[in-house]
């Protein structure tokens, strides 16, 4: 009997051909007759479901078969006899590297010594669980500086194309043991290089096209919260489709600039395209429709941060002790301008 039995893989399902299965499944289930294993070790079989289709026993794995993985299907004839085993190698797709680091924000070459976060933008989806050993900070002599970043959870966007790295806040925040023992991760006046390894696998398991390096220098700490009074609005001319410009004296947090500013006119919000330029010191809104004469408001979410995590009206570490009595309020600040 068993000699004529063969196992086939069709459309992700494993079929036992040349064997007439009984109507009812055996006492110990179909898995006692036919099972599929991942790899070659003595491990539990694949999860899945059994069915009789066109007189053949079929096993459908609960999860899709993975590229590059070997599966071993084993059929044990019910009446005893030699087991039939067949190996299936799922093809490993030939894939060339295609993902690269597109940009790291802040884009400036001088970062405040209390710089809080870096945002790394990749051109493709990446693999999780790698950041801890693929990103390095080097000093001016090329020596790796350990402990610059907060270990633990990797903060990705849902497409795994943007990674948020946080400098160890315990070293940034004044008064903590880490800050006093190790100092801040970035020291004013010193030179550093951020290095991202080429070997970082993308979501397909393929390395980056190339590694990435960003040189920067430590600047003075930024302790003052962003002050909208110091921001400069350049209003566009009525009837034009010029961009509205907002300039900041120091760079701001890139992802937050994209969603924490908007423009409101008498007709409601002004639709347009936001762009950020001049090392995150300029925010522009290019309107969909030409500007109309009138009064406008630039609405700022006070949660907008600068590079050091200071947000509008509130420093990252407040150096005046206050009793904690305030309650959360969603705060926005309106900056008026006129289009003439």
């Amino acid at each position: 009997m068993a000699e004529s039995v063969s196992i086939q893989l069709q459309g992700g399902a494993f079929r036992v051909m040349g064997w007439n299965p009984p109507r009812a499944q055996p006492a110990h289930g179909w898995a006692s007759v036919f099972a599929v294993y991942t790899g070659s070790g003595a491990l539990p079989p694949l999860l899945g479901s059994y069915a009789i289709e066109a007189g053949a026993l079929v096993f459908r794995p609960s999860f899709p078969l993975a590229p590059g993985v070997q599966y071993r299907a084993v059929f044990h004839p019910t009446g005893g006899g030699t087991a039939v085993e067949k190996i299936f190698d799922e093809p490993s797709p030939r894939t060339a590297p295609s993902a690269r680091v597109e940009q790291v924000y802040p884009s400036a070459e001088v970062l405040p010594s209390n710089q809080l976060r870096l945002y790394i933008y990749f051109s493709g989806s990446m693999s999780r669980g790698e950041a801890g050993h693929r990103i390095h900070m080097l000093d001016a002599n090329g020596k790796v500086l350990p402990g610059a970043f907060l270990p633990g959870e990797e903060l990705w966007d849902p497409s795994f194309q943007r990674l948020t790295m946080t400098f160890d806040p315990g070293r940034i925040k004044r008064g903590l043991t880490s800050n006093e023992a190790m100092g801040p991760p970035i020291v004013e006046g010193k030179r550093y290089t951020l290095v991202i390894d080429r070997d970082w696998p993308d979501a397909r398991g393929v390395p980056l096209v190339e590694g990435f390096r960003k040189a920067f220098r430590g600047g003075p700490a930024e302790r003052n919260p962003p002050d909208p009074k110091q921001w400069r609005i350049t209003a566009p001319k009525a009837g034009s489709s010029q961009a509205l410009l907002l300039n900041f004296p120091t760079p701001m947090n890139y992802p937050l600039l994209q969603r924490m500013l908007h423009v409101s006119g008498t007709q409601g919000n002004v639709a347009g395209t936001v762009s950020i330029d001049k090392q995150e010191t300029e925010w522009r809104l290019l309107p969909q429709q030409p500007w109309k004469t009138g009064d406008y408001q630039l609405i700022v979410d006070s949660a907008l941060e600068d590079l050091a995590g200071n947000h509008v009206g509130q420093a990252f570490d407040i150096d005046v002790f206050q009793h904690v009595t305030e309650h959360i309020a969603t705060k926005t600040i309106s900056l008026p301008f006129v289009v003439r």
Partner: protein
Amino acid sequence: MLRRLTFVRVAVGLSLAAALAVTVMAARKPAGVLADLTSGNAQLKSAGALAFGPDGVLFVGDSIGGEVVALDTNDHAAARSAVKIDVQGVDVKIAALVGVTPDQIMINDLRVNPISKNVYLSASRGRGPDAMPLVARVSGSGDVSLLSLDNIPHSSISLTDAPASDPSARRNPRMMTITDMNYVNGNLIVAGLSNEEWSSALRSIPFPFKAAKEGATLQIWHASHGQYETQSPVRTFVPYTISGQQYILAAYTCTPLVKIAVSDLQPGAKVKGVTIADLGSGNQPLDMVPYKKDGHDYILIANSSLGLLKLKADNLEGYKPIDSPTVTDVAGVPYDKLGNFKNVQQLAQLDDSDAVILTGKPGPFNLQTIALP
């Protein structure tokens, strides 16, 4: 994606499994919080932080989906005897069940069902954005199985609270990664880190989840030396009772360990933790287990670089809130480093005298019971 899992038992222990099944049926009670769950397909996009609620309800943090899902594990039978777990290569076994190589399994969290003492692991099949969420169960006899996410009584609550930073993007790039959750006095408390702004709120969500109410959000602050204070995200926390009052012990991302009275966690409140220890630099507390032994209080802490720490936690009520700039808050609760446990990735309480740890890096990962030291 096709995700039709049946609850398949693995390996040996059939007789124990059968005994367990009988007791499960006897103990099944659809009343209480379970009555608020609806059967159907739990649409998880990821499975991260875990927490157990009443009646074997398992909360699963889905950071990519921006929600928390409560699942009825249907695992309500009390463990009959002390549970000793020792599973070598638990990631390898999960990989075998779902048909991938072990490097494609990432274990995200570990919790013990306080009733059955079965161990639950959240994991991902794959490492990219399309990774599939898994919830695995490890029984006291070492059987590894997957919890079916199809046709399971569940309910969920959305944590999404921010507009898309780029409305034209396929997905909103802003995301809150849920770092820890605990069920305390009828509320699920959720800690998270945003991938955009620094200040993240702690949320307290009443359970059963009511209509789209997301619960109270709290600003959690931390002061150091009574001089500088920061709106600081909580990385991990654990419920704790001090002198009959309910607290949470929380570890901030900037390393101090603090206590926060649960009575302070009121809607909209700005809450400041009282520092009880500063574990120093270059490390992150991963999980904490408070326990009593020989008349003393301790907290066992799994730490990203220091392994296991045993904190002497007697008289935590003596740590007063900081209320003037001159008071120092570096309290220095003494702790011991336990050198015999390396690469501890996860820690969870099993019972009054035991914990479960997941060790290994990069893998294979081993799950084992340890006596609380």
